[in-house]
């Protein structure tokens, strides 16, 4: 689980530098944080604490502003509610991942608008969502397959 998280964290940066354009937006560390709760039995409180520190770590390394610690918690809470109330199958998981990424991007966008650092533009927002969904769903599917094989 830890190895998977570390790989996801660095892979996000490698993909970023390798495909040096903004056409794909990998959020592999977030995807990994979502998938570990769905695949491994982790205590809710420990999971939230992990997300809190993971968010801070992500912020320190990449963004220098502490917003991911908050967003990771939000996604974590939604993930806990989802796992406890819905069937844990691939179809539902993908739908949930789409919802999570949408909420993550929306909150990020709203935060910057509230601070006056961004102007709202619906077209750019929708394009960003598409750029985020494609690589992250592919990464989720690959991770899902690998983790399933490892668990067997």
């Amino acid at each position: 689980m830890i190895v998977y998280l570390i790989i996801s964290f660095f892979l996000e940066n490698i993909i970023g530098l390798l495909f040096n354009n903004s056409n794909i937006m990998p959020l592999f560390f977030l995807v990994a944080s979502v998938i570990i709760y769905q695949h491994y039995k982790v205590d809710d409180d420990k999971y939230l604490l992990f997300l809190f520190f993971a968010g801070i770590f992500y912020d320190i390394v990449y963004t220098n502003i502490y917003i991911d610690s908050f967003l990771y918690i939000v996604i974590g809470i939604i993930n806990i509610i989802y796992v406890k109330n819905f069937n844990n199958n691939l179809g539902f998981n993908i739908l949930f991942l789409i919802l999570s990424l949408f909420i993550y991007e929306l909150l990020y966008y709203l935060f910057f608008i509230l601070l006056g650092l961004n102007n709202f533009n619906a077209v750019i927002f929708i394009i960003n969502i598409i750029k985020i969904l494609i690589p992250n769903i592919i990464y989720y599917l690959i991770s899902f397959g690998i983790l399933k094989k490892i668990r067997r």
Partner: protein
Amino acid sequence: MNMGGFMHNKSRKNDSNFKYILLIILFFVAILLCITVYSIKNNRKLTFIESAIKDTTLYIGKIIYTPFGFIKEKVIDFKELIDIKDKYEDLKKEQDKTAYYKEEILTLRKELNELKKITGIDDILSLYTYKNATVISRNYDSWYNSLTINLGSKSGIELGDAVINNGVLIGTISHVSNFTSNVKLLSTDTLDNKISVELVVNDNSIYGLLTRYDNNESVYIIEGINENIEIPNDTIVKTSGLTDKYPKGIIIGYVIDNTKDSFDLTKILKVKPATNFNEINYVSIIMGDDL
């Protein structure tokens, strides 16, 4: 107590633990969000712990990326090899002019030194030294806002230093740790500090203010230009050197359109950046004057 009651109590205890931890976390999150607002508005200096974590992680990331970067460079080299004939023809034409340019630079430097001696002026706005750096991280949520480079305070980088890419201004240093720095890009939606710019039209210098970057059209907006001055398209926009932040003469972009403001008093210029913000791999940090 029967088994059902015990389980019920345990579940209630777990629930209250969960709520308790959630409350504590949300409390810390609120504090962190306050720090975020503060750091965005004030270009806060990184603490020792933040610097250490950032430097260590990014260096590990850089080591892991090395083989991938090597392959990427080989692929780029191969692509360039295909276009090499056209480039060779262009360079051949340019080479004929090189001797003339060299001679002109030498003459101008000589004249400059003589004028400096006569006038006693030491500071020349357009002269500076720079250090080259590599982009080691660029986050997707802030793709057009910032990037991280592999030089920090140990290399003499300071907050507010101007950063260029292929001679084109791209931003300023916004955070510095020991071995890495963050560059705030000019392509960020809202610029905190406006940039004084210069355009040369028919040998006359015209000054204006670069106020923001329009993400929809991918252009800079320049305001404060007198409405009576005709500014042709493709006019080069450079830094004016009238602020401490940016030396004089660094290219920013080219005029592609101009309109009048809503009061018909000044012109608003749309300027296309002279660099591609999607492809920034190496940058140079301007350190100060060279004399």
